[in-house]
């Protein structure tokens, strides 16, 4: 409506000496038009210039991709999900403990948690994985079961990150909630369990899911501790096939499988956030 009133106003005096300028609306339309042209030109350029045959052979080789099934799902994807789940469960449990220690009124607990968190957030995840997977077995001459090594290798770092997230969530719950719970006769522990932590977790569902997404991708670091055919996760699985076949198709397939896991996850967060917003 504003456009229709603006237009006659600008064209009202065709004989005016000032050079005729575009209305705001016309300017916007021009910019959009240019952007579309750039897009179509880029697309046409890509189609004309790319070496489609080489691309197809090296990245989208259907026959090679077919040989990857079903193992890419039944072994590789399964392991990626399993390792993520184990590390996340460990990280969440231990992270909650660390968060509660950081909020403790007992100073040594606070110090201990702070040192832990600062240490493992400050180190590359690979260093921890080497330490747990190789350093400790060499030092003590014992090997833990693979799943334990994997859980700790990833979980130790994950716990440090999650502890900070959880602490932020707990501190994000208004002070009045604890006071109301205590004034009803609940103990500090009971109030934490029934009132504060559930609300804290609602606040941190989005960042926590973010951690989960990062963890899925971090499982790709586990190849450094050595794998057997049965314990390969997605990236190791794809990389081995890349080396054997001298062809990048396995990486594309593995990439698609990663996305099949991570994209639904981000969608799930959106649903959870919406549900949260409603009950707030």
């Amino acid at each position, binding site marked *: 409506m504003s456009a229709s009133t603006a237009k006659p106003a600008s064209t009202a005096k065709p004989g005016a000496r000032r050079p005729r300028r575009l209305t705001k609306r016309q300017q916007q339309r021009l910019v959009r038009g240019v952007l579309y042209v750039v897009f179509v030109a880029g697309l046409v350029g890509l189609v004309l210039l790319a070496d489609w045959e080489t691309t197809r052979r090296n990245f989208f080789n259907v026959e090679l991709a077919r040989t990857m099934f079903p193992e890419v799902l039944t072994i590789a994807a399964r392991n990626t999900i399993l390792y993520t789940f184990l590390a996340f469960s460990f990280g969440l449990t231990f992270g909650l403990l660390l968060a509660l220690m950081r909020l403790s009124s007992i100073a040594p607990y606070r110090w201990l948690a702070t040192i832990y968190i600062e240490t493992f957030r400050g180190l590359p995840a690979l260093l921890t994985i080497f330490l747990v997977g190789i350093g400790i077995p060499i030092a003590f001459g014992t090997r833990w079961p693979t799943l334990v090594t994997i859980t700790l290798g990833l979980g130790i770092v994950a716990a440090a990150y999650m502890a900070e997230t959880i602490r932020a969530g707990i501190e994000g719950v208004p002070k009045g*909630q604890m006071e109301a*719970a205590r*004034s009803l*006769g609940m103990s500090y522990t009971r109030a934490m369990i029934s*009132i504060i932590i*559930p*609300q804290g977790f*609602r606040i941190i569902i989005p960042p926590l899911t973010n951690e989960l997404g990062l963890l899925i991708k971090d499982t790709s670091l586990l190849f450094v501790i050595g794998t057997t055919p049965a314990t390969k996760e997605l990236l190791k699985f794809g990389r081995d096939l890349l080396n054997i076949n001298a062809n990048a198709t396995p990486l594309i397939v593995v990439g698609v499988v990663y996305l099949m896991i991570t994209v639904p996850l981000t969608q799930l967060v959106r649903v959870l956030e919406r549900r949260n917003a409603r*009950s*707030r």
Partner: protein
Amino acid sequence: MTTDGSQTQVPAIEVRDLRKSFGELEVLKGFDFHVNEGEVVCVIGPSGSGKSTLLRCVNRLEEPTSGQILIEGEDITDVDADVDALRSRIGMVFQSFNLFPHLSVLRNLTIAQRRVRRRSKAEAHEVARSNLERVGLLDKIDAYPSHLSGGQQQRVAIARALSMDPDMMLFDEPTSALDPELVGEVLAVMRDLATEGMTMMVVTHEMGFAQEVGDRVVFMDDGAVVEEGPPEQVLGDPQHERTRRFLKMVR
């Protein structure tokens, strides 16, 4: 006559020489105060006078710096006092309602009954329903706090406190956060409670409520009692200059 009769009994709340400091700032400066059983005492005074701190000391949401607080004769400032058990006998209503937003109205009313009183589910529900009925909100039993108006939230908060069958109720400026048109419904619930004989300590700016419902009004300023007495006297014929000045400002 009522005063004589109740003074022979142990007061519901007795505060002796209470002091509370926040760092350098002394908020309560040797406070003496009591509430008898069945009595409604309204505490008024300018903001920053220590009213809320006094109330919060009574159920030890604030730790007193020194002095004694006796609830039904039991010293709660004692290090061995079971604070949780004590608090479950004292209902508290906050200015900002503080309902649990992640729980339905019903669960807000039952969670402490179940976890603290160890009541059965059926019994807790029964108590919750009767208290919601008392505050006129039985139809909101399955609603979440965010779907209620401020006045409704405060009434639910009162019902939540009542569900613990408290011996007394503390109100910390229960209507200060409400839109003016919602104040009446909360005061009506409080008036009903007073009529039923509940022991109440009310920090408030509602002079009309203090006048009408209060058995006694305490005017405090700068961390100490300036004057106290029946509402007609303190509000109608104040003896102290500071009381007069305050009343002139709020009216």
